Every structure is written in structure tokens, then in C-alpha cells.
């Protein structure tokens, strides 16, 4: 199902949880709603499900305006962070409950529940109570319960945050598998960028209630719309060098400069951040104006590569360096910049120039 949110806004009294949020999601996609804690992800989800009314704006499901529709008429499956299983019912009871409400005959209910339980690999535990299940199993039941009535849209609010690291990895692949098998349009809320990068078709990145960028994971990483997006994605985080634009050059407070061909692209004298991903440095042999002469602070072995902490213009930063060079703390290194993963952002507005 295609989902359109148009200028969606939600205020809780003084708090502006979501503002002017406009996004279009395509049928059959898995979209991650990503952002730091408190940025309004759950609020967006709750407005989609109809749990909370919108302050202004519109929601369309397949072209139909559902903004005022009560939750039960929206055809949505919900999975909460704490799974919200009915503790007094068995797994079977939990999965069949939505069908029971819809007055589906008992035999059909069971058949459908069994089918969906197989899909989430819970077919052999139908008689258990939620208390007797592990976190991952509870989560599967919650997904099965949300899927059993064939929702048009599946909403998952941080479904993995209660699980340990390994199970999280496993379950996110499970969720992706189930989503691909059922082809249900899915919105997955998370504040874990790695989780979002690994399973989604598209990522919607939010901050303070505003949409920052809506793009495919790689595009988000390679073409961040602004400083926030660049900072939020990537591990290790992107390196930021604050400075000024002087002609073609980028100049830092202590006079260190790099020639980047900035004139015409960035207004003269603008205060900017030169942001470079750790993997976007290359070791060069001789100094040139478009290269950085840095000092090595420390070096960590990381498999076939080394992660070095260096300083340039008084700023410490991280860079991946092939280990064949064997640098030691105190050495001087000349680093060139690759085309990819090098950006220039306005220091104040975060707007991207390059």
C-alpha cells in the first residue's frame, strides 16, 4: 500500500513533536524511521495507526484520506517495543485474537494462525504463555499477531530494542525475510543507524520533529542532505574540520589550509565544516596544496586495515589506513582526499555546499 503523509504536524501543548512532515512511501517497501531519541518517531507511527489524532496535515493510504479514520478501520498491524502480548492467553490465543474480534469462524482462525506461526517459526510453541517465551520468541508472536489479519501496513516501534546484540542481528534479518515473503508495506522505527542501514529499502531520517532526508541507505550515506545526516550515519562518525572559505581554499583557525576548488561553490568567507569520512583518506608521498599534512596520535590494528587517530589543524580525527605503511605515533603523514565521502557544510545552518 502506498502511504502519503502530507504536512503532518503534532503538538502536545507546547511540545512540537512532529512538524510539517511530508513523506511518500511506496507499496511493498520496508522503510526505517530513524532518528535520535525524542525526535518524534513514535509520534509519527501513532498518527499513522490512529492512536493519536493529528494536529494538522493529512494521511493518505492508497489515495484514500484516512486522517480522521479510527484505528480499527485503517487495516494496520502494530508491534510495540515491549510486544504487548496478552499475558493470560497462549501463543495461539494471542495470534487468533484479532481474528476473533473480526468474527472469523474458529476453524479458519486456527488454520490462519498456524500458517502465520509457521512463517515466523513459532509453529511448535502455540500452547505456551508469553511468560514462557524468550524475548525473540515473544517478538515473533507479536509480529504474527500483527500479520494474521493481513494488514495493509505493518508498523513496528523499536521492536528489537529489548533484545541482546546477537538476537537483534538475527531478528532483524528475520523481519526482513518475513517482510519480503509477505510483501507487506512496513515501517520500522529505530534509533540504531546500523539496523536501519542493513534492512531497509528507504530510510526516513528525522530530527526534532522535522524530516531531514528520505533516501535509500547508500544514498543517505553518500549524499547526506545536511550536517546532521552526515553526523548521524556512519561508524566511526564522520570527521569534522571547522574553518573558513578563502578563495579556492579551506582555512582553519591556526592557518592550516587545503585547496578544494571552493570558489563559485561556497561564498567567500563563509564559516564551514569540512567533513570527511574515515575511509575517504589516501596516503600520499609528497605534500601538495590539496593534501593534508597530519601528525599520527595513535594507531589501532583492525584486521587488514589500521585505524589511525591523527591531528590536522588542531583537530583530532580518525582515518582508515592500509597497514603496510606501519605508521607510529609521532610520525608525519600526508593524506589526500578521495572524491567520495568528502563534504562541505555550512557551520551554522548545516546546509550542504559540496
Amino acid at each position, binding site marked *: 500500500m502506498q502511504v502519503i503523509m502530507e504536512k503532518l504536524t503534532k503538538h502536545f501543548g507546547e511540545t512540537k513533536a512532529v512538524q510539517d512532515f511530508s513523506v511518500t512511501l511506496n507499496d511493498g517497501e520496508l522503510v526505517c524511521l530513524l532518528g535520535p531519541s525524542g525526535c518524534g518517531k513514535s509520534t509519527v507511527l501513532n498518527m499513522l495507526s490512529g492512536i493519536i489524532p493529528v494536529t494538522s496535515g493529512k494521511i493518505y493510504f492508497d489515495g484514500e484520506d484516512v486522517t480522521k479514520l479510527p484505528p480499527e478501520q485503517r487495516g494496520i498491524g502494530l508491534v510495540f517495543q515491549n510486544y504487548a502480548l496478552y499475558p*493470560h492467553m497462549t501463543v495461539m490465543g494471542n495470534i487468533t485474537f484479532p481474528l476473533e474480534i473480526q468474527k472469523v469462524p474458529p476453524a479458519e482462525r486456527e488454520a490462519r494462525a498456524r500458517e502465520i506461526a509457521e512463517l515466523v517459526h513459532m509453529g511448535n510453541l502455540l500452547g505456551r504463555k508469553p511468560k514462557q517465551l524468550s524475548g525473540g520468541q515473544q517478538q515473533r508472536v507479536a509480529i504474527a499477531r500483527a500479520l494474521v489479519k493481513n494488514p495493509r501496513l505493518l508498523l513496528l516501534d523499536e521492536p528489537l530494542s529489548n533484545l541482546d546484540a546477537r538476537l537483534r542481528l538475527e531478528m532483524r534479518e528475520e523481519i526482513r525475510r518475513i517482510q519480503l515473503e509477505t510483501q507487506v508495506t512496513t515501517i520500522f522505527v529505530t534509533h540504531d543507524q546500523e539496523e536501519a542501514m542493513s534492512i531497509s529499502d528507504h530510510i526516513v531520517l528525522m530530527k526534532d520533529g522535522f524530516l531531514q532526508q528520505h533516501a535509500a541507505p547508500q544514498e543517505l550515506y553518500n549524499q547526506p542532505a545536511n550536517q546532521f545526516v552526515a553526523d548521524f550515519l556512519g561508524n566511526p562518525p564522520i570527521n569534522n574540520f571547522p574553518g573558513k572559505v578563502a578563495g579556492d581554499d579551506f582555512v582553519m583557525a591556526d592557518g592550516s589550509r587545503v585547496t578544494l576548488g571552493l570558489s563559485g561553490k561556497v561564498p567567500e568567507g563563509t564559516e564551514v565544516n569540512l567533513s570527511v569520512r574515515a575511509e575517504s583518506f589516501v596516503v600520499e608521498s609528497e605534500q601538495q596544496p590539496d593534501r593534508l599534512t597530519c601528525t599520527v596520535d595513535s594507531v589501532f590494528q583492525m584486521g587488514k586495515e589500521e585505524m589511525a587517530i591523527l591531528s590536522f589543524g588542531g583537530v583530532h580525527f580518525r582515518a582508515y589506513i592500509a597497514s603496510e605503511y606501519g605508521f607510529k605515533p609521532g610520525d608525519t603523514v600526508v593524506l589526500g582526499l578521495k572524491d567520495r565521502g568528502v563534504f562541505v557544510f555550512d557551520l551554522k545552518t548545516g546546509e550542504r555546499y559540496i
Partner: protein
Amino acid sequence: MIKQPQASQKSYPLNGALFALSWALMAAALPILLFLQNKWLALAAFLMGAGLLILSLLLDHSYTLRPLAARIIRYVLLVFGMLVMVFPFFWMLSSSLKTYNEMNYFPPTMFPQNWANFENFKIVFEKAPFARYFLNSVITVLGSVGVTTFTTILAAFAFSRLEFRGREILFSLLLSMMMVPFEMLVITNFQTIVKLGVYDTLYALIIPFTSSIFYTYILRNFFQSIPSGLYWSARVDGCTNWKYLWKVMVPIARPSLVTIVLLNALASWNSFMWPLLVIKSDLRRTLPFGLYHFTTEVGANFELLMAASTVTVLPMIILFLFARKQIIRGVARGGIKG
């Protein structure tokens, strides 16, 4: 007997047998008394059983010596407390089985001469319509507890789940009403009952007791502890408030509800002052009121009085014996003060 803590964590099969045997011996005391009429043999069986029970408990929990001493002291205190609590009931039961002559022995005897002497009960049922009282009590309790439970569930749901303006203020107002003592309400309640034309009927006993702020408060607290995710999952699935309440909330709150029902039933069963005010006819009395009336009729025949008391109290005791676990669990969960 003095072992390492780890070793004693296991329970031994022998111990289980010992435990069972001790209870069997204690239980055997009663039939011995009733059928063999030999109170010394019964006493011996009982004491032997009790001794074995203590032994098996000690064997089961024999950690090191100090915890053992602490355990003994604890049990002694508990047993003492139990005796203090149980003695009046024992005395009532014992007296109800004595004859008029036995009652007047001095010093008084601990046990009746004949444990199967149910003569007093027969007389009690002949002298006053206790069966009728009993029925009245049951009807009153069922009526008032039934309706109270229903209204309590609905109110607790409204105050915990539904959102409406002034909800918290309204609830605070209700809570503050709890400070008005029942005695103050008696006059207005009485007038209402008379105006309704139900004076001297069982309705008069039920109608004023069909809601309870206190139980609403307890249940509301419990309902609030149920995560809202359950509610919204159900709502998104098309579940109505009504269905959600009865299919999800009430089953989850069952332990709390059972406690509420039991406490309420007990209060209702024991209520005395109100029936005294609104019931005139002999045949509409409830048990406690009937018992009170009976006292004035039989005067100094304490053995009859004790038999009547036994009839009055026994149903509640039986109820509590059966629902002990539920009550304890409910009290622990709902945070009701004992």
C-alpha cells in the same frame, strides 16, 4: 542435622514421607476422638504428628546451627501467634458441642465430653429460623457483591483507560468521599430506603452497597499497571472498549478481583448495624442480626449461642480456607493493607 547449606537445598524423598505421615497422624486425631471416644489416644496422635512435622521441617531446612535457631524461634513465635488467633474459634467450636451442664463446670473443661454432640445445633435451628437467616445472608451477599464488582470494574476502567475532561479531579473527589464515615451516611441512606419503599426488605440491604470507592481505587491502580500497548494493539485490531475490558483487562486482573470479591463478601456477610436499622421482620434478618437477636432470646445458654455463632462464622472460614492463596496473592499484588 548440621549440614552445609548447599547439601540441604535438596529435599529428600524420606522427608516427603515424613511430612505426609505427620499430617496424617494429626488428621487421625479427629476420627479417633469422634469414633473411639478416646481423647488421650487422640491427643497422643496429634502431638506425635506435630512433633514429626517439626522434625521434617527441620530436616528439610537444616542449614547451619544459627539459621536453625532463628528458624526455631520464628516457628515458635508463629505457632504462638496462631494459637492466640485460633483459640477463640476453637473455644466457640468446643463450647457448641458441650451440654448445658458441661458449660457450667468449674474450672471449665477444654474439650467437650462427646465430640459428636450436635444437639445444640438442632435446638438452634428449631428455636430460630437460622436457615432463613442463612438464605437472607447469602442473597444479600450475592446481590451486593455481584453488583459492586460490576460497577467497580466499569468505574476502574473509566478512570484508568478512558480519557475525558476532569477525570483526575473527579477521581480525587471520589477518593475524598472515602473520608466520610459510614455512620454519617446512615441517616440519608435510611431516608432514601424509606422513600424508595423498600424498608424492611432485602433490597434495603443491597441497594446502598452496590458500589465501592475503595475497591475502585484498588482496581484502577491495577488496571493502570497494564501496559497501554495491549489496549492499542487490541483497538487497532478492532476491539471495542467493552470487549477489551472483559476479554483482556478482567482476566489479567483476576487475582485482584478475587481479593476484592472476598473482602467485599466478608464485609457484607458481617454487616450488622445497617440490617439492624432497616429490617424489622424476623424472617428478613441476616445471620449476624439474627444471632444478635438470638442472644437476647436464649439468655445464658452459652452452648446454644456458640452453636449459633458457629453457623454464622463457618461459611466465611470455609471460604477463606479455599481462597487462601488467591487472597494472599491479591493482597501482595494489589497492595491492599491486611
